[in-house]
C-alpha cells in the first residue's frame, strides 16, 4: 500500500509543481511585457540582441533550409512523377515550406541555437550575481536584460522563417529544375498560381510570430528561473530545448487546425 501511495504522492507533487511553474512563467511573461516600454524606447538595446539571437542564427538556419528544400525537391518529384504531375513539385516545395516547415523548423533550430544561448547567458548572469548587482544599482533587470531579448526574438523569428522558406524554395529549384530537369517555367508558374498570399504566406508569418513569442519567453524564463549553480543552468538549458520544441509542435497543430477551419 505504502509504495502506491508514495507514487501517487509523487505524481501529485509533480503536477502541482508543473502548474506552479506555469503560473510563474505566465507572471514573468506578463511582467516582461509591462516593463517593455523602456526597452522599446531604447531600441539600440533590442538591435544588439537581434544581432546575437537573429543574425548569429542565420548560418545554421540557411544551411538547414537549403538541405530541407533539396530533400523536398527529391521526394516531391519522386512521388509526383508517378502521377504524371512532376511540374507540381514547385507548388509542393513552396507550400510545404511556407505553411509548415519554414516556421516550424526555424523555431526548432532557433530554440537549439538562440534559445539555449539566452538561457545559459541569463542563468549565468544570475549565478554570478550580475542580475542582483543590477537590482542594487536601481536598474530593473527584467526591463534591462529580459525585455530587449524578448523583443529581439519576436522580431527575428518571422524574418528567419521567411529566409528559411526562400532558401528552401531555392534548394527545391536546384534539385528539381537544375538536377532532375523539370521545366523551369512550369515550376515557377505553378508555384505562383497556387500559393495564396493570405492563406499561405500570412498564415505562415502568424505561425512564426507565435513561435517566436513562445520560444523566446520559454528560454528567458528558464534562464531567469534557473538555480544559480552549474547543474541548475545546464538543466535549464536542456529544459529550454525540450519545452520549446514540444510547445512549438503543439502550437503548430492548434494553429493549423484553426487556419484550415
Amino acid at each position, binding site marked *: 500500500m505504502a509504495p502506491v501511495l508514495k507514487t501517487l504522492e509523487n505524481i501529485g507533487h509533480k503536477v502541482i509543481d508543473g502548474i506552479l511553474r506555469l503560473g510563474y512563467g505566465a507572471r514573468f511573461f506578463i511582467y516582461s511585457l509591462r516593463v517593455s516600454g523602456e526597452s522599446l524606447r531604447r531600441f539600440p538595446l533590442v538591435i544588439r540582441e537581434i544581432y546575437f539571437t537573429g543574425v548569429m542564427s542565420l548560418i545554421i538556419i540557411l544551411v538547414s533550409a537549403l538541405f530541407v528544400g533539396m530533400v523536398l525537391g527529391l521526394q516531391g518529384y519522386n512521388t509526383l512523377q508517378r502521377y504524371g504531375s512532376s511540374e507540381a513539385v514547385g507548388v509542393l516545395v513552396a507550400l510545404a515550406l511556407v505553411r509548415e516547415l519554414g516556421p516550424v523548423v526555424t523555431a526548432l533550430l532557433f530554440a537549439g541555437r538562440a534559445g539555449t544561448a539566452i538561457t545559459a547567458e541569463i542563468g549565468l548572469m544570475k549565478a554570478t550575481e550580475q542580475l*542582483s*548587482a543590477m537590482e542594487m*544599482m536601481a536598474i530593473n533587470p527584467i526591463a534591462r536584460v529580459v525585455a530587449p531579448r524578448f523583443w529581439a526574438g519576436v522580431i527575428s523569428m518571422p524574418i528567419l522563417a521567411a529566409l528559411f522558406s526562400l532558401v528552401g524554395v531555392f534548394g527545391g529549384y536546384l534539385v528539381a529544375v537544375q538536377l532532375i530537369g523539370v521545366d523551369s517555367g512550369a515550376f515557377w508558374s505553378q508555384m505562383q498560381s497556387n500559393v495564396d498570399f493570405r492563406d499561405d504566406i500570412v498564415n505562415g508569418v502568424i505561425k512564426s510570430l507565435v513561435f517566436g513569442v513562445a520560444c523566446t519567453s520559454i528560454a528567458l524564463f528558464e534562464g531567469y528561473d534557473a538555480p544559480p549553480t552549474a547543474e541548475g543552468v545546464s538543466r535549464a538549458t536542456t529544459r529550454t530545448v525540450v519545452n520549446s520544441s514540444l510547445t512549438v509542435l503543439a502550437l503548430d497543430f492548434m494553429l493549423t487546425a484553426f487556419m484550415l477551419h
Partner: protein
Amino acid sequence: MNPVTSTPVSDNIVEIDNLSFSYGNRLLHKGINMRFPRGKVVAIMGGSGSGKTTLLRLIGGQLKPSIGEVRVEGKVVHEQDDTALYLLRRKMGMLFQFGALFTDLSVFENVAFPMREHTDLPESIIRDLVLLKLNAVGLRGARDLMPSELSGGMSRRVALARAVALDPQIIMYDEPFAGLDPISLGVIVNLIRRLNDALGATSIVVTHDVHETFAFVDYVYFVSNGQVVAEGTPAELRESAMPFVHQFVHGEADGPVPFHYPAPDYQQDMLRGTST
C-alpha cells in the same frame, strides 16, 4: 548597548529594528538590532552561513523581513513601492563577493553603466567621471580590458569603482576580502577606508576576517545563531571576555562554536559500528 527605541531623525543612516527573517522553515535572524551611524565604517562579522549577506540584501530591499524593519534614512525599506525603493537604492552602492561585473562589457563600460542608466550626462563627462573613479582604484590603465582578463583583486576594484559610480551615501561590501592575496587585500582595505572618508559615506562591511577588519573599522557587530551576540569598537572586542568573541577573534577551533557537528557519543557510535 544601543537603545532599541528610535526617532525618525537621527544620526544613523541605516537602522535595523527587531528584525527576524526566515528562509523557508529556517529562522535565519531572530530579533536583530543594529545602528549604522553616518560617516562610519561598520563591520558585521560572524561565521559562514550566519546570514550576514542576507542582512545586506534586507537593507537593499531585495528581501523582506518576516518581523521587524530596516530603515534607511528613516524610511522603512520593505514598505516602499518599486519606484521609491529604486530611488532609495540609488543612494546605495554594493560590492558583491566576486564583483558581479557584467561579463559582456569592458571595464570602462562596467563603471559607466550606472551613469548611462541613471543620468543623461554627455559622453565627455561620463568619460571623465569613469576615469576619475578608475583612477581612485588605480585601474585607469585597465579601462579597455574585459572582466575575464582581470585577476580577482582587480575585478573587485573595478566593481568598487562601479559601486561608487554615482557617489552613494551607503556602501555595502559583501566579503570584500574573500580569496585575495595579502597585497590585494591591503589595497582593498585601504580603498574602503579612503572612499568612505572621501565620499562622506557610510560603509557596511560583511566579513569574517578578524585581523584585517579590526585594523580599519569603527564599530563591529558579531552575529551568531541569528542574533547579535556582541558589539563594540575593535579595541573593546579584542579585550572581550565573552567566550564566543574570544573564540572568534583568536580563531580557536573549539569553544562555544563546537568543532563537531552534532553527533551521538563517539564511543557509542564506534561500538555500534562494530556490532553490525
